[in-house]
């Protein structure tokens, strides 16, 4: 079979629909996971020992096991204890927990990178804890780790492809189905790769814009 990209273009709407689901599950799991990650990190700094252990255990479990294994456990394993989730919610749950583990470590790096001298200065100026945290700790910490967070967002987006194994109809699953139907492997996966590349490029670009305009000193 000769290479023929035009033969694959009619399937672009199917691929875009899959891309939409990939993006949807990524955006939701990133933001929910990041918020969860902040709480996990705060838990690890708490004076309560059980809370520290729980936080540490959570991070170790979800960071040191593959997402595929986590998704299999959630989708096929949980029904054995009575919890039955559909592919979208299973993928969302798995990616959220996975992301929370990774971002809690990223936030730890960010918060620890703020010099303690700044905190002491804030205290000397009479700033309340809330003000200190928001202006002196949080915003500079995020600015420091924005590249790491962008990385995490893009990696999470690319990992959404693992959802295809538990029958989620995202982009990779659409590509695999089209490949079986038309056998035009090179054309389909080139266009699919291009779609992933462009979407990741948009994420990276908007992160750079945010760095320049939202997180200026």
């Amino acid at each position, binding site marked *: 079979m000769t290479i023929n990209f035009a033969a694959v273009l009619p399937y672009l709407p199917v691929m875009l629909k899959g891309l939409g689901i990939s993006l949807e599950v990524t955006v939701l799991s990133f933001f929910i996971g990041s918020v969860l990650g902040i709480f996990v990190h705060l838990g690890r700094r708490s004076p309560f020992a059980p809370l520290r252990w729980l936080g540490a255990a959570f991070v170790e479990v979800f960071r040191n096991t593959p997402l595929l294994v986590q998704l299999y456990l959630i*989708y096929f394993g949980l029904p054995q204890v009575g919890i039955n989730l559909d592919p979208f919610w299973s993928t969302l749950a798995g990616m959220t927990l996975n992301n929370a583990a990774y971002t809690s470590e990223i936030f730890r790096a960010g918060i620890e990178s703020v010099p303690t001298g700044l905190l002491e200065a804030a205290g000397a100026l009479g700033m309340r804890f809330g003000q200190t945290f928001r202006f002196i700790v949080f915003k500079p910490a995020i600015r420091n780790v924005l590249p790491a967070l962008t990385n995490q967002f893009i990696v999470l987006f690319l990992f959404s492809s693992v959802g295809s194994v538990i029958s989620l109809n995202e982009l990779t699953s659409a590509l695999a189905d089209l490949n*079986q139907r038309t056998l035009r492997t090179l054309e389909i996966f080139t266009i699919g790769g291009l779609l992933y590349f462009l979407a990741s490029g948009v994420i990276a670009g908007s992160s750079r814009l945010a760095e320049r305009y939202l997180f200026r000193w």
Partner: protein
Amino acid sequence: MVTRKLAALAAVLLTGALSLTACSNGPSNSGGSSSPADSQLNKVLKAGTLRVAVLPDFPPWAVQKSDGSFQGYEIDIAKELADSLGVKLKLVPTNGDSRLPLLQSNRVDVNISAWTATNERAQTAGFTIPYDAHGAGVLFKKGADIKSYQDIAGKSVAVARGSTNDTILTTDFPSAKPVRFDAITDVISAVKTGKVDAGLESSYTVAQAAKADSSLDAISSPPLDPQLVSMGVLQGDQVWMNYLNTFIRNLIASGEDNKLHEKWLHEPLASIVSVQGNAA
């Protein structure tokens, strides 16, 4: 100086590319002529050995054990074929990609490797009459409202992505909702955990899954949409083809094919195949 070197390199690459295309386009599918002396049949009888390509990883049709020996339904058929010729049997493992190349490079005389005789494949390989048919069966949880194949219409059905069952579902049951998994075990897990209403897989697989799990049930007989499985040979060798066809017809008529099928697959030979052995 540089342009001359580049020109020489380009000339070498171009010649190489052209000769490669010339090689790959050459027809290499023709077997011996129709003269009995040139036929593969004669070659096998003279050599005293029948070389058969079989699958090593498709139980119970054919599987290679850890000690190197083979066993299975198709292995027994290969043994009968060798006995009918009065020659020794040599089994050569193959896979989906190498079935035709093994014939073309004369490393095997015949393929008995669960080879489905599709129209597309028949344009490049020679197929005998079928000796087996693989069809689909439906797997579902006990208590589901499924009494016949038609009941899967409108339900969510798990299939292995790109398999013949995937095609059967999309063409014969357009109202059913396909849920595609990469692995056959995932199809069975999805039915077991209630993620889908039913699963469509090979009739043998669903029968075994229902037997192994008391919460599952299956409809597998007669198999849905049977795909005909034939022995594969090179095109053009009519004498060899005739012998194999005669052998298969006699195997079916004597009931031996059905006996082997029951022994390994615990279900009778599909009627679309066994009808070939009926007296006219």
